[in-house]
């Protein structure tokens, strides 16, 4: 039966998650050089356009259609066939299945957009569009099915992923690393000054991300219930804790806490709590958050050592934070599940397996997709375009004319 309260909550949650993609656009957009700000925003906005259509046409069906051997959904929901105003027998039994469909769609949209952080300032726009489309079909939809669909093999194995640590963040983070490696560094990196051009824009993005993440995590309870309440609380606490610990790490390491550190930390915390949100206690959330801030800060530093150019740390924050979160879920779970601390070693191992599987799968598929696109239309813009900036050369516009 349809519950008005659950419907209201899930509609709100869907709207909140939608807002995260523009939020991400601003978060990323502020961190690039001003000559690339619009292109960077565009990479998120185009995901809204393209993945929405992809999800309607085939994505929802691949992810949540009739299960085929645990690996993929059937084509019975192509073009949303049979996705209507009554609840689904399998998912979110108290809301019209269209609500479940649109809530899930928002996750499918933001995930490829997250990857864009690794490839900004140099990737060809057309190549990017093809990339996210193919990636959605070949990476997101299957992994989403494995973990969340009725019959998906990782879900059946018992992997816990409350709101997308594996499906969203590890998937996107690992793919981001591969993209950064395949694309190569930006011209001049790291010797030139690759510094954020507008941290107020980044802060706006961070504010909207935090706000939207309540929909992401607490919405994943699929109802206005106790689990939603718990997920909401743990989400908030982890964000705060990670912001705090990132700042402390920074304060100790470079002697000053920074605004970029504060917002980077809170995003790291939100990433890490995602798989755990409905499974852990508020105190567990503190530990997960504190860990996320420090771990992601270190992983971002290591980038310098290894020398790849994950431009905005999509891997450093989403990949590493997602892995920490997925494993931490196996440690701290205590609500509707148990983890290592409650003596459930098995859960911990399952979590590690799920992490490993998605790293291998997403990494490999991303590599293949990129190589195909590279062969057909190429991946990078011309060197001169990169110097001039992608806003002007790829889109014929400029971000600011302030005087």
């Amino acid at each position, binding site marked *: 039966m349809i519950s008005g309260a659950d419907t209201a909550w899930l509609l709100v949650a869907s709207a909140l998650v939608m807002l995260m993609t523009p939020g991400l656009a601003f978060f990323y957009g502020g961190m690039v050089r001003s000559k690339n700000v619009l292109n960077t925003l565009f990479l998120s906005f185009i995901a809204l356009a393209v993945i929405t259509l992809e999800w309607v046409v085939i994505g929802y069906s691949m992810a949540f259609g009739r299960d085929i051997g645990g690996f993929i959904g059937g084509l019975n929901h192509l073009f949303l066939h049979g996705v209507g105003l009554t609840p689904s027998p399998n998912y979110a039994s108290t809301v019209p299945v269209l609500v479940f469909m649109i809530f899930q769609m928002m996750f499918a949209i933001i995930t490829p957009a997250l990857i864009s952080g690794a490839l900004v300032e140099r990737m060809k726009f057309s190549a990017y569009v093809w990339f996210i489309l193919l990636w959605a079909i070949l990476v997101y939809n299957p992994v989403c099915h494995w973990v969340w669909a009725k019959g998906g093999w990782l879900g059946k194995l018992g992997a816990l992923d409350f709101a997308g640590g594996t499906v969203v963040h590890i998937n996107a983070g690992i793919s981001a690393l591969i993209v950064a490696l395949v694309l190569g560094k930006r011209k001049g990196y*790291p010797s030139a*000054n*690759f*510094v*954020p051009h507008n941290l107020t824009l980044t802060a706006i993005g961070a504010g909207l991300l935090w706000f939207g993440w309540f929909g992401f995590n607490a919405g994943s309870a699929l109802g206005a219930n106790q689990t939603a309440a718990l997920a909401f609380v743990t989400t908030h606490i982890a964000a705060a804790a990670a912001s705090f610990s990132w700042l402390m790490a*920074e304060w100790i*390491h*470079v002697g*000053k806490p*920074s605004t*970029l*550190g504060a917002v*980077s930390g809170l995003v790291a915390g939100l990433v890490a709590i995602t798989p755990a949100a409905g499974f852990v206690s508020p105190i567990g959330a503190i530990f997960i958050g504190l860990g996320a801030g420090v771990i992601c*800060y270190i992983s*971002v*530093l290591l980038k*310098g050592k290894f020398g790849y150019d994950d431009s905005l*740390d999509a891997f450093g924050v989403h990949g590493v934070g997602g892995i920490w979160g997925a494993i931490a879920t196996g440690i701290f779970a205590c609500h509707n599940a148990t983890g290592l601390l409650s003596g459930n070693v098995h859960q911990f191992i399952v979590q590690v397996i799920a992490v490993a599987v998605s790293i291998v799968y997403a990494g490999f598929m991303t590599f293949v997709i990129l190589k195909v696109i590279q062969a057909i239309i190429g991946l990078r813009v011309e060197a001169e375009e990169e110097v001039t900036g992608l806003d002007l050369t790829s889109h014929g516009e400029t971000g600011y004319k302030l005087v």
Partner: protein
Amino acid sequence: MKKIEAVIKPFKLDDVKEALVSIGVHGMTITEVRGFGRQKGHTEVYRGAEYTVDFLPKVKIEMVVPEDLASKVAETICNAAKTGKIGDGKIFILPVEEVMRIRTGETGKDAL
């Protein structure tokens, strides 16, 4: 006529302007510039990575004045802009051959 160009610390602009007005300078043009010199730049840190900024914000004042006022103007700027700390800036004096006021077409001293 001479052109005086002074590069100063931005927060000294108001003092300098007032000092100049008080000795009878009626016009000047200023530009936001960035300076490199003995004064060290600063370091910014983003996500743990350091970036050195060698060029510091300065303000350039340009004004054309009659021959006889030039050294007084330079002195005045020097006094008003001085903090005594490194990076206070420079004053340059250049020759000017002609001046014209656009509004009236006047030339020479009258145009100033």
